[in-house]
């Protein structure tokens, strides 16, 4: 791919894609652990939160974005799924060492803010600053979409 992409695409899917994936995750949760045990409240909340992030990553296109890949990989690791194979491939494909990152340094004040951003965006640690900004734009759009979906759900379920 020698041609340079002039327009950087940060479009996200429509809201109903996010809603579908989130509801699917919730439905799977329900099948695994019924929501009737009152003493496991924090566990439930954590499960819902994780379902929100995972379903958001899937809705956003799964492996087509660095942040969604990193998020899903982190989620798999939490579930103790074996990730040994993918780790081997990961070293060759999208893991950018900090040495290469330094080759595209922006002004120090920008880099400082970028470091803080790297801690917030999944997979940001290995990205060059310019790639980080692109991923961040997409990530923010998806996150706000996910928040809207959850807000709608809460509004729909709240007693009038």
């Amino acid at each position: 791919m020698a041609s340079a992409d002039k327009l950087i695409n940060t479009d996200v899917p429509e809201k109903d894609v996010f809603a579908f994936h989130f509801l699917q995750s919730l439905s799977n949760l329900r099948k695994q652990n019924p929501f009737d045990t009152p003493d496991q409240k924090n566990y439930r909340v954590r499960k819902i939160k994780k379902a929100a992030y995972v379903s958001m990553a899937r809705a956003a296109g799964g492996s087509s974005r660095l942040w969604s890949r990193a998020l899903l990989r982190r989620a798999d690791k939490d579930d103790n799924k074996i990730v040994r194979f993918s780790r081997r491939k990961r070293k060759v494909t999208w893991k950018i060492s900090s040495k290469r990152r330094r080759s595209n340094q922006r002004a120090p004040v920008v880099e400082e803010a970028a470091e803080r951003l790297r801690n917030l965006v999944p997979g940001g640690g290995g990205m060059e600053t310019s790639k980080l900004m692109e991923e961040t734009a997409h990530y923010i759009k998806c996150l706000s979409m996910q928040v809207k979906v959850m807000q709608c759900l809460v509004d729909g379920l709240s007693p009038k």
Partner: protein
Amino acid sequence: MSNRRSRQSSSAPRISDDQMIDLVTKLRQILPEIGQRRRSDKVSASKVLQETCNYIRNLNREVNNLSERLSQLLESVDEDSPEAAVIRSLLM
């Protein structure tokens, strides 16, 4: 195939300054209520990144709150209420 992919990422054209400015502009558009400053690009870029960090933290907090409320709502639904019907139709 993985080799091809790594070669692609290393030889991919670096994003030019113009594209960088375009990205900063895009981020600025997404962020709510950011001042329309016309200073030098470096200053505005770091300010935009700062606002972005704050915005992401806010969104994460929102997700936390909404997850808690959802957990309460999903647990405390009466069997015959309209909410239960909504849940049943959505989740089953």
